């Protein structure tokens, strides 16, 4: 019995080490950027607090989506429909507001409802009919991307002035003028974030609490860890799976609204490949695709790591001239390092047992 407990402790330790590595890597990466572009002659503004907050601003939607993806991956599934769903949400919002003149008060809940219905269909097919998540969500991906084109094939920009646009434009300044700098013209610049960032952070906290303290959250871990034992323990694995996919699509719809607030337009090619960014963020954050292991906080740091890589590359003139694909190579390499670390830890654990 005691030995069992010790094994358990070791398991948990090796998982938290993954998370620690993620956080450590992020700090290392950021420190590298700080020394490269934040000091002396090379100072380009990387040292500013605003640059750090900009990573949040550009990735607010991704943070939300990565939270949903983490939950799905915890149950051992995958959801590759998120990118297309974001595109569809953006298109509905822009066409609704711009061409049809519908109030965002109606449109935003409608989009969230679409997310829930979309997730419910996918969740039913996966949970109750036992079809593979990859295939179902791939069909969802095709469907949402095609629907985007059915609504409108052109780029629609939101120019109507309503609360949606006003909310998107609100700047939330740092309290106590933290990290404020005086620019060349002598104007004091206080670092700020916007509303999407705050919503994204609230989502992270809520999902974290849900996974840790609610029955649904714990069952997600149980189903991902071992579906048969979870079923023998009396958990409704089918329902848990369905709820997970509903949650994922719902969070993705919130992400879609945030994405739209950032871009203020809808196009058919929007958010292409966002699903892979979400998956790689979750994997970098220490979530195992086999299910049962992971943490929303890790995925959150994973998104920040991806964002920092992009930021670093954009600060480097040489790399920027090589083209926008360099971040992809760098983040692929980082992903490789990470999954190698995970594999090594998995092997070590196997040997211990």
């Amino acid at each position, binding site marked *: 019995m005691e030995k069992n407990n010790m094994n358990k402790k070791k398991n948990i330790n090796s998982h938290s080490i993954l998370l620690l590595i993620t956080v450590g890597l992020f700090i290392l990466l950021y420190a590298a950027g700080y020394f490269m572009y934040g000091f002396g002659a090379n100072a380009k503004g990387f040292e500013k607090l605003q640059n750090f907050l900009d990573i949040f601003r550009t990735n607010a939607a991704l943070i939300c989506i990565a939270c949903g993806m983490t939950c799905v991956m915890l149950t051992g599934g995958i959801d590759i429909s998120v990118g297309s769903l974001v595109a569809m949400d953006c298109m509905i919002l822009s066409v609704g507001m711009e061409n049809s003149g519908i109030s965002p008060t109606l449109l935003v809940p409608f989009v969230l409802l679409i997310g829930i219905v979309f997730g419910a269909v996918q969740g039913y097919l996966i949970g109750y009919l*036992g079809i593979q998540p990859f*295939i179902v969500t791939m*069909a969802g991906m*095709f469907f949402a991307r095609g629907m*985007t084109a059915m609504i409108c094939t052109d780029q629609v920009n939101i120019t109507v002035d309503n609360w949606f646009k006003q909310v998107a434009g609100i700047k939330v300044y740092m309290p106590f003028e933290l990290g404020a700098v005086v620019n060349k013209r002598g104007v004091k610049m206080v670092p700020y974030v916007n509303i999407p960032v705050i919503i994204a952070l609230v989502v992270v906290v809520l999902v974290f609490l849900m996974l840790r303290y609610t029955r649904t959250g714990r069952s997600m871990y149980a189903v991902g860890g071992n579906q048969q034992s979870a079923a023998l323990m009396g958990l409704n694995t089918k329902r848990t799976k369905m709820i997970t996919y509903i949650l994922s699509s719902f969070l993705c719809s919130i992400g879609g609204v945030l994405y739209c607030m950032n871009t203020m337009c809808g196009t058919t090619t929007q958010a292409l490949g966002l699903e892979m960014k979400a998956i790689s963020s979750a994997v970098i954050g220490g979530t195992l695709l086999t299910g049962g292991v992971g943490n929303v906080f890790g995925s959150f740091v994973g998104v920040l790591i991806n964002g920092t890589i992009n930021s670093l590359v954009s600060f480097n003139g040489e790399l920027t001239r090589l083209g926008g*694909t360099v971040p992809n190579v760098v983040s692929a390499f980082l992903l490789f390092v990470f999954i190698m670390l995970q594999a090594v830890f998995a092997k070590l654990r196997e040997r211990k047992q």
Partner: protein
Amino acid sequence: MKSVIDWLKKVSKKPLFLPLVSVFLVLVINLVYDAIQGNYVFEFLKFELKEGALYGRIIDILNRGSEAAILAIGMTLVVSSSAGTDISVGSVMSLAGSLCCMLLAGFGVTHVRELGELQMPIFVGVIAGIAVAGLCGLFNGFLVAKMKIQPMVATLIFFTAGRAIGLLLTNNKMVYIHLEQFKVFGGKLWIFPTPTVIAAACILVMAIILKTTSLGMYVQSVGINPKASRIAGINSVAIILLCYVICGLFSGVAGIVATSRIYSADSNNIGLNLELDAILAVALGGNSLGGGRFNLAGSIIGAYTIQAITTTMYALGVAKAQAPVYKAIIVILIVVVQSPAVKAYFAHRKAQKEGGLAVAGRS
């Protein structure tokens, strides 16, 4: 009449039943559409010789579906042996094409118009392209087989990096090779479209390998239970590795075909979303994505079915961007019919009926 029903029941249990039915349905839709439009009813099947090449809708499907069919061969082996999918094939395709064009034109050169401008013989470039794709496959295979990383995550690396490396190789530009000798892989061979011939050759090679060696059996047994196969003396690591290398090589071939078709290296678009088509082809072919038993013929028919659906939709006047909606609905219908829960439901109903009769008979 009863014998017909019995025959249908027997036939519907065959592995190739579903893929063939899908093809048949697409055919019927085409016939009905042509009949309504007042066209020649067999417009779909008609083909003719025009300017020394075969021409027609069915030829077009066989031509355009070649890349997906070639990819489906490798994907079938990967799915069967490792119970996972290789999502890097599309990206690796574009990498192979970019490397080939870069080697032929020289780094930084964007246009080649004469044979003399080539840096090396065409076949060297082609072989290099296929070889680099094989190396990508080896890397994926190493991660999956040796490091025991989930196939989708392992191949996510090249999914992200392959296209990007291709762009770096071609200096972020399109590289055009305006040479008949290079266009031949995506053009025509005598009167036949070369992609179809290449696909047929790939299928033939694979079929011969599977027939003459016990590779197929090994792959299936590794897919069903890697541990048991290892105990039975099969080197499961080597088998999985081999499957990924084969998959990589075939994606290289598909990449060369796709590059030659547009006689240029277009990293952003070559093989885009083709990995999804390949995986779909495997699933439509009646193969379980959970590994184990596989049916190569099913996958290939699946690949051409997808192309037939796409071509039909374009013929019906569906816009290219909207076509995925119908594709999604068709996919969902097919997988729902195939799903274990629905199958179990029908089996249960059948058992109830027979059980009821048996009880009635006994009393």
